[in-house]
């Protein structure tokens, strides 16, 4: 590599890293507890445990959960029902009205049922009253630094800089190593040289993991605006036929259980995990049950397919195919979290996260040490010049 080319890539690596380092440190540190979020949430969960029943015990009808929820909170609207993949729970989300829900979602609260017995296991308070949980705070800092949608876009920019830093780091790795072997750490030289070698060695070994986590982090940050754009264009065009219709009243709604069965029959082999009730436009449509399902195979289990079931007639109006970039996003999403391979994988993810922290901190140290070294060199040169002047 020519020395000018090397200098350009080195400049790109230095400045793309420096601009994002502090934010990446925040992301790496807040990411550590998020790897174990399921275990931490379960540890502090004060809900009643689900009944110990055989694994093949079928779930109760959705209509029963809807009726029980309406009896407990008359006058409120049901926003959605969600089935947990890992626990036999049906979680019903309610709000005083769709308008309140769409104003900020902090008015929403939920009821957790045992999906097989119908027993209420836990009730939440609205977020506006209960405040945010510790894990919620950590997640918000990790995702958007608590700045909201602009924060998510900012973090997407930082993730893009991180990827540039990784690629430029890989480009200059060869010239920096010169004739030395892979993994050579010069402990007999200064601390700066030792840390430079450690930085290079750990960086090149974990490069693929870091690019994977950075790229999927970037995709996750862009997911919301992309989904909103898709809803505003493709989904909105599907709803043109319903222009002028009113949202069905509670008494006009067809059975949610039959809506679920209709959607399931249209997509055999898929597992329904959520049903959004008609009324809103931010997470569903005013006229349909929006039924979300995912596949049952390892690859398709991360791919979600929504279906629209007419809430008045109970007919299937559409099975929506998401655009390729949203499908790719769904499949790649788990690669960011490291929570899809059991506890050993989570422990490995923590160790890889710690190596990323070492790379970031050592990068900062190398930059400061180099600046200090340059300043010392200039200072001693000036001293030498002065000495020469004095001798003269």
């Amino acid at each position, binding site marked *: 590599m020519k020395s000018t080319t090397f200098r350009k890539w080195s400049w790109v690596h230095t400045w793309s890293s420096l601009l994002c380092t502090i934010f990446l440190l925040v992301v790496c540190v807040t990411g550590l507890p998020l790897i174990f979020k399921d275990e931490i949430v379960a540890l502090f969960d004060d809900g009643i445990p689900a009944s110990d029943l055989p694994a093949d015990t079928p779930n109760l009808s959705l209509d029963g959960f809807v009726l029980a929820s309406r009896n407990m909170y008359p006058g409120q609207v049901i926003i959605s029902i969600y089935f947990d993949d890992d626990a036999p729970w049906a979680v019903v989300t309610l709000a005083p009205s769709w308008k309140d829900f769409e104003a900020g979602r902090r008015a929403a609260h939920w009821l957790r049922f045992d999906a097989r017995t119908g027993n209420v296991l836990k009730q939440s308070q609205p977020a506006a009253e209960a405040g945010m949980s510790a894990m919620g705070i950590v997640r918000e800092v990790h995702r958007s630094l608590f700045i909201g949608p602009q924060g998510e876009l900012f973090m997407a920019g930082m993730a893009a800089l991180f990827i540039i830093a990784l690629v430029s780091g890989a480009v200059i*790795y*060869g010239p920096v*190593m010169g*004739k*030395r*072997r*892979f*993994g050579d*750490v*010069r*402990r*007999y030289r200064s601390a700066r040289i030792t840390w430079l070698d*450690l930085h290079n*060695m*750990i960086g*090149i*070994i*974990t*490069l*693929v*993991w870091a690019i*994977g986590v950075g790229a999927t982090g970037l995709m996750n940050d862009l997911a919301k605006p992309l989904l909103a754009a898709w809803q505003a264009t493709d989904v909105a065009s599907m709803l043109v036929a319903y222009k002028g219709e009113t949202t069905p009243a509670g008494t006009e709604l067809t059975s949610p259980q039959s809506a679920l069965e209709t959607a399931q029959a249209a997509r055999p082999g898929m597992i329904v995990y959520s049903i959004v009730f008609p009324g809103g436009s931010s997470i569903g449509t005013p006229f349909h049950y929006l039924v979300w399902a995912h596949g049952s195979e*390892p*690859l398709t289990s*991360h791919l979600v397919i929504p279906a629209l079931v007419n809430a008045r007639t109970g007919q299937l109006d559409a099975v929506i195919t998401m655009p390729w970039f949203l499908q790719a996003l769904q499949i790649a999403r*788990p*690669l960011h979290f490291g929570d*899809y*391979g*059991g506890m*050993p*994988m989570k422990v*490995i993810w923590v*160790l*890889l996260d710690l*190596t990323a922290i070492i790379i970031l901190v050592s990068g900062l140290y190398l930059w400061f040490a180099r600046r200090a070294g340059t300043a010392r060199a200039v200072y001693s040169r000036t001293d030498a010049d002065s000495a020469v002047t004095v001798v003269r």
Partner: protein
Amino acid sequence: MNVIRKKIRLWRGPVVCGSSIAFGLLAALLGQGYIWHGLAWAALALPLLAIVIFAWPWKRYVRG
């Protein structure tokens, strides 16, 4: 020939570690059961093991 040999010597390790990580991530994502997950854990642990070996503070080093 010598240049190619040097490049192989320098890049062999990173390519093995990168491939191991890529395999581990995909095996855990797409594989089912303990065999695939076990392979994924081993593949992801390999680069960490390499870091420990190369960064081991009491490792004997050869000058030059």
